């Protein structure tokens, strides 16, 4: 007995931010330069009052309809996002009611970013193999556009909004392998949401300073690009090596590598450093952007839809980023 990813659907908000839009706001950069720097041509952006939980309701609905899943089958709901509706109750609790899941459903938030899908998958598998439940609804994604300063081109060209809904179910064989994970909280300041939180209370000064940016009342996402790149170049190759060793496999045994779609440059650099053949490193960031914990399931779904993955393939999944936090596993489909 084991667990497997049974179905994935995702929801992207309708509005898009194109490189033309960014270039007209930042005339010193052409749209070609923005594409070259980010590897991204369009990002989906949530509506004014649309939060991660609102995207989650839509993604869950799409999953149930598309794959003919009955809500009563769900035993556990895991909601992973950094923008939660409130400090309490857990957004997952309100989502149980909004999605219409049975009151016998367990529900928990996972407030992680880019590593979140891997942690969610680890928890979902654990809930199934410990015989707690048969089906876990894992909702992972972001509405991070709300946390980006309008003048911060570096982040605005990378991040988009979106939510993935993944159904993890009990299966006859184990299709989700062992996990490698890790944390280095000493680097938290390299990638963090500053202002408007319990440590840095929303002040009149903050709101005034950010008046032209509509107050930045959700807080502001800040990134130390060089530090994050160094973290990635050090940790991702190590994590891949460790997860392969744990499964007694080599790079050649992997049919497809699906990494968190951080940026076009980071994916290209990781591919080069780890000598992954281009056709084995899946990249769909151009149209989907960096949606934090939604990128890995969105990429997996897109790879399956494009016929890139075949039954029996081994796929290495890896997430890494804010925390610092990272995780990887190898699944078979």
């Amino acid at each position: 007995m084991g667990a497997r990813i049974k179905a994935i659907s995702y929801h992207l908000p309708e509005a898009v931010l194109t490189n033309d839009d960014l270039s007209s706001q930042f005339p010193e950069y052409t749209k070609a330069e923005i594409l070259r720097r980010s590897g991204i041509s369009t990002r989906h952006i949530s509506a004014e009052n649309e939060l991660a939980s609102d995207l989650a309701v839509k993604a869950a609905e799409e999953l149930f309809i598309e794959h003919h899943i009955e809500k009563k089958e769900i035993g556990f709901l895991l909601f992973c996002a950094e923008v939660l509706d409130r400090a309490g109750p857990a957004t997952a609790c309100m989502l149980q009611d909004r999605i219409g899941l049975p009151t016998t459903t367990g529900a928990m938030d996972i407030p992680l970013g880019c590593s979140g899908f891997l942690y969610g998958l680890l928890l979902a598998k654990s809930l199934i193999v410990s015989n707690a439940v048969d089906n876990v609804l894992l909702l992972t994604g972001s509405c991070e556009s709300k946390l980006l300063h309008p003048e911060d081109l570096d982040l605005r060209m990378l991040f988009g909004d979106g939510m993935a809904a993944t159904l993890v179910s009990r299966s006859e064989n184990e299709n989700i392998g062992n996990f490698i994970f890790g944390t280095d909280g000493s680097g938290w300041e390299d990638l963090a949401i500053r202002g408007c939180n319990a440590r840095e209370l929303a002040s009149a000064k903050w709101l005034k300073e950010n008046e032209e940016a509509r107050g930045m009342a959700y807080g502001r996402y800040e990134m130390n690009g060089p530090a994050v790149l160094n973290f990635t170049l050090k940790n991702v190759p190590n994590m891949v090596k460790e997860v392969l060793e744990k499964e007694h496999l080599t790079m050649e045994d992997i049919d497809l590598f699906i990494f968190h779609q951080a940026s076009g440059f980071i994916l290209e650099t990781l591919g080069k450093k780890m000598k992954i053949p281009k056709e084995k490193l899946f990249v769909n960031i151009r149209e989907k952007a960096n949606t934090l914990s939604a990128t890995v399931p969105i990429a997996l779904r897109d790879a399956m839809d494009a016929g890139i993955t075949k039954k029996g393939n081994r796929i290495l999944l890896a997430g890494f980023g804010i925390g610092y936090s990272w995780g990887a596993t190898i699944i078979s489909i």
Partner: protein
Amino acid sequence: MDVNELISKLQQEFEDVPAGTLKPETKLSDIPDWSSMHALIIIALADIEYGVTIKGEELRKAQSIQELYNMIITKQSNPS
């Protein structure tokens, strides 16, 4: 390796920089259209090609390509 090998690798990475414009004495900040992206490209190149980690603040201290080269050589001989 010598500084010219580093220059030729940088030249390959910086698509917008006309051939022959990079010299050992060229200041990094004088590279045409110098941006945060160039810093990331140099950090990635140092890691992949030379096996050394350069922090953002260290890169800011390197005035010229020659100084960047010296930093890479020093780091290669003193692995941290």
